[in-house]
């Protein structure tokens, strides 16, 4: 084939380039879709509650993932520092997943429960007041900005389309009860989203319940990261069997 045929026709060049590049992606990704074991069978992982979901949206909006990964790799160093390696099952309800690749700050996959809410609020507002050499920006506005949640139902419905089991009718609700138990299923009902959201803010106690802030949502999200699976229930070799 003459170079000229490729190099002087943009469309030929484009199509061939795409073909070549996609081979790498296809060979690496498609096999994982074909193997059932990719997502481990494990109890406890549930979709985000409405408040946590909005927290995740703020996490994305503020670009926290540019400095923080949420992916603990199965390496000794990471095991020692962050805890159990991340499971595919733990991000099965994330759209988009926030694994990230850059670590200017520490990995956050298991940050839930590591600090108190008050610590998070102070740290996000003024990181250097707690960690004197921190490079994290001051997110001054999150504490005062009211949380925009009037469109929460639309967010949940969009995720339903992506396969996340929030429930719209009795049948779906019953399914969720079977999957996650009654408590969790109640928090996944779309028509009760606002009520659930406000109740969760009130439960976290330090928010102004009348008008929840963006900080309330972000911290609620951070506090469940990596806490859903109880690893004490599984023996060490169990998750290796899925590979």
């Amino acid at each position, binding site marked *: 084939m003459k170079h000229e045929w490729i190099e002087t026709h943009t469309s030929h060049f484009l199509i061939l380039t795409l073909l070549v590049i996609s081979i790498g992606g296809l060979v690496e990704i498609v096999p994982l879709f074909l193997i059932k074991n990719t997502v481990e069978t494990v109890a406890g992982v549930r979709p985000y509650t409405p408040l946590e979901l909005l927290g995740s949206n703020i996490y994305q909006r503020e670009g926290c993932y540019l400095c923080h990964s949420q992916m603990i790799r199965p390496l000794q160093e990471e095991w020692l520092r962050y805890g159990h390696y991340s499971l595919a099952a733990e991000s099965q309800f994330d759209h988009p997943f926030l694994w990230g690749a850059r670590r200017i700050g520490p990995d956050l996959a298991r940050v839930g429960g590591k600090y108190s809410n008050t610590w998070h609020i102070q740290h996000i507002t003024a990181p250097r007041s707690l960690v004197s050499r921190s490079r994290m920006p001051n997110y001054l506005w999150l504490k005062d900005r009211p949380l925009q949640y009037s469109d929460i139902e639309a967010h949940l419905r969009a995720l339903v389309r992506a396969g996340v089991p929030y429930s719209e009718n009795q049948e779906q609700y019953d399914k969720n009860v079977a999957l996650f138990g009654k408590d969790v299923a109640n928090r996944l009902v779309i028509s009760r989203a606002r009520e659930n959201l406000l109740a969760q803010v009130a439960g976290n*106690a*330090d928010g102004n319940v009348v008008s929840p802030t963006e900080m309330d949502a972000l911290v609620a999200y951070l506090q469940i990261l990596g806490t859903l699976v109880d690893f004490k229930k599984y023996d*060490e070799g169990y998750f290796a069997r899925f590979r």
Partner: protein
Amino acid sequence: MLDANHPMVVQTTSHIWDGDIQEFNNLPPRGWWRAFYATVVFSVFYWIVHPAWPFGGDYYTKGILNKIEYQSQGVTVYAHWNTRALLLHTLQQQDGAAGRKEYLEKITAASPREIVADVELMAFSRSLAKRLFGDNCVSCHGNNVANASFGGAWFAGGIGLEGFQQTIENGIGAGSRGGWVMPAWKNRLSVPEIKALAVYASQLSSARTEPTDKK
């Protein structure tokens, strides 16, 4: 370069830019070709040795000659090569793993007071706790009195070693998460880790009451 002594022997890519700029269509150097074919041969070798091809369901080629051995619930398990099994293998069988296990078991069995009394256990416990303290506690407690940053939380030492252990296990403050002053660590850290930290924290607190003690 092109003259009577150097006749044009290579093709050009056959199209011309800006009226007169042409490009030679030389083959890459031979060394480059060799390396390229070597990568092709390597990939075939890699497919055979490593887990590679899926055939639907849960079946995929597991590779050969790549067994990894690890212990799970007291039984020796052999798995095909994968990073999770490799991690367990490393943690269980690398240099010093047996010794570390032995010390962790001793710490689990000992009371914090017994740890302090045993010089060897104490040395192990301190190096374990130093790392854990850096990863988990410094951001609130600081690493000396001067930079204890969060709520002035420095160790008073009034509650004794067992008190420290219980505080670390259960955290401070009850009720919802928002009410927590210090999180509970019993679900994040193991028993020997918590004991080692209790001892470590108590030593930091005595370092405060005797500031002249440089050790």
